[in-house]
């Protein structure tokens, strides 16, 4: 099979969202500079859109439009929202509606924060603990702040990205601690398929690792991916296995 045929096959799997993680990384890396594959993906998506009309046509319930209107109002773009200093009833209701996975991770983060604080008797033992406590606190505050968007990343382990503006906070669990010769990289993929590094981070020991600084994405980012790369800096393109991914 030629290289071209291989990428033709991957383009179909990509359009169907059916690629295995390693194939997805391979294809996305290739897609950056291949106009033919970009066109192929676009064509496949146009064809697949037809399949949506092959399904039994079902009228959505009237309540759905009401929900969408309410979500738009709550999105923070319909008017000014209060600063996230404290929880207000409306914010609490939104928190309750979060999925179980997000609640689990957020709760874990809060739990770890509480454990950290209680463990040190409100006096952090060292700068590392202090920094981690502050990171967790900041991430949880971000998660609950108006305008923040949560993106669930699935794959190896579990993670939630909290996107607010250009900044991304990551709450991660289940990824192994990396050594000094490797680094985790958060990649951002745009609608055009371009993949660039958003930043690097390390996994520390413990239940949950929170990354609060150094991860920044563009406004046109559509997907987040996490790989583990050799060395201490992000390479030009992803070479390590895809560990986590999620659509914004």
């Amino acid at each position, binding site marked *: 099979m030629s290289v071209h045929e291989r990428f033709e096959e991957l383009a179909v799997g990509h359009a169907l969202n059916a690629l295995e993680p390693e194939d997805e990384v391979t294809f996305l890396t290739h897609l950056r500079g291949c106009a033919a594959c970009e066109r192929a993906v676009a064509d496949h998506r146009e064809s697949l859109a037809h399949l949506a009309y092959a399904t039994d046509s079902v009228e959505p319930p009237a309540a759905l439009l009401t929900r969408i209107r309410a979500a738009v109002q709550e*999105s923070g773009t319909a008017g000014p929202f209060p600063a996230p200093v404290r929880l207000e009833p409306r914010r609490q209701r939104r928190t309750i509606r979060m999925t179980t996975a997000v609640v689990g991770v957020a709760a874990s983060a809060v739990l770890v924060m509480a454990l950290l604080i209680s463990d040190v008797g409100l006096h952090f033992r060292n700068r590392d603990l202090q920094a981690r406590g502050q990171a967790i606190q900041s991430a949880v505050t971000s998660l609950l702040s108006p305008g923040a968007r949560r993106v669930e990343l699935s794959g190896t382990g579990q993670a939630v990205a909290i996107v607010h503006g250009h900044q991304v906070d990551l709450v991660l669990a289940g990824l192994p601690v990396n050594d000094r010769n490797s680094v985790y990289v958060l990649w951002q993929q745009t609608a055009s398929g371009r993949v660039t590094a958003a930043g690097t981070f390390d996994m520390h020991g413990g239940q949950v690792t929170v990354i609060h600084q150094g991860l920044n994405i563009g406004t046109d980012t559509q997907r987040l991916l996490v790989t583990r790369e050799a060395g201490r800096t992000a390479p030009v393109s992803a070479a390590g296995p895809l560990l986590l991914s999620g659509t914004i």
Partner: protein
Amino acid sequence: MKTAVIPSIVRTARRRPALGDDPNAYPGLDDRALIGRVSERDPAALEALYGRYGRPCFSLARRVVRDEQHAQDVVQEVFLTVWRDAGRFDPARGSFASWLLTMTHHKSVDRVRREETHRKRATTSDLLDDRPDPGPAVQDEAWSTLRRERVRQALSTLPAPQREALALAYFGGYTQREIAGLTDTPLGTVKTRMLAGMKRLRTSLTGLNDGAVDLEGTP
């Protein structure tokens, strides 16, 4: 340019009076103009788009996630994304319908992969079920029925293994490796079948649009 496969969808979608769609709201605006207004924070434009596409989005999400409530969650998430990130739509990369339905499909698949319980209920026979719709709304919508039957006809012309692979991926949310396991087929063969099936499907669907006179962007 092969993106002409979508226009008939757009045309027929506009003919449907839909929930929340004020028939007098933006009657002369095409999808691109509407999404432009959405990016300028015009909620009426968002509702007009919902009126055009809420039903196919909901139908697709419901088919993939196989749960009414989850389908509503997906569609809400999709239209909220449209509201927040209308600027991401790039007409040079395809039609609005394709962008929206791709987003609906991906979010549905992401959800069904998280909801294994629902996914286990989706058998191969379920996914390939092509019984005609019994719903009264469908009976009233000749355009909708005709389009659906034509797409189903295009699917039916595919060799069974190709149709099965595409249906399991698109409607079931299965990955290629999972499909290989489900169908007891080598992974490479699954990939080849998908590519061959997509090529055939594209040819068939392009042919179906030969009679289309209304391009997207022309209300």
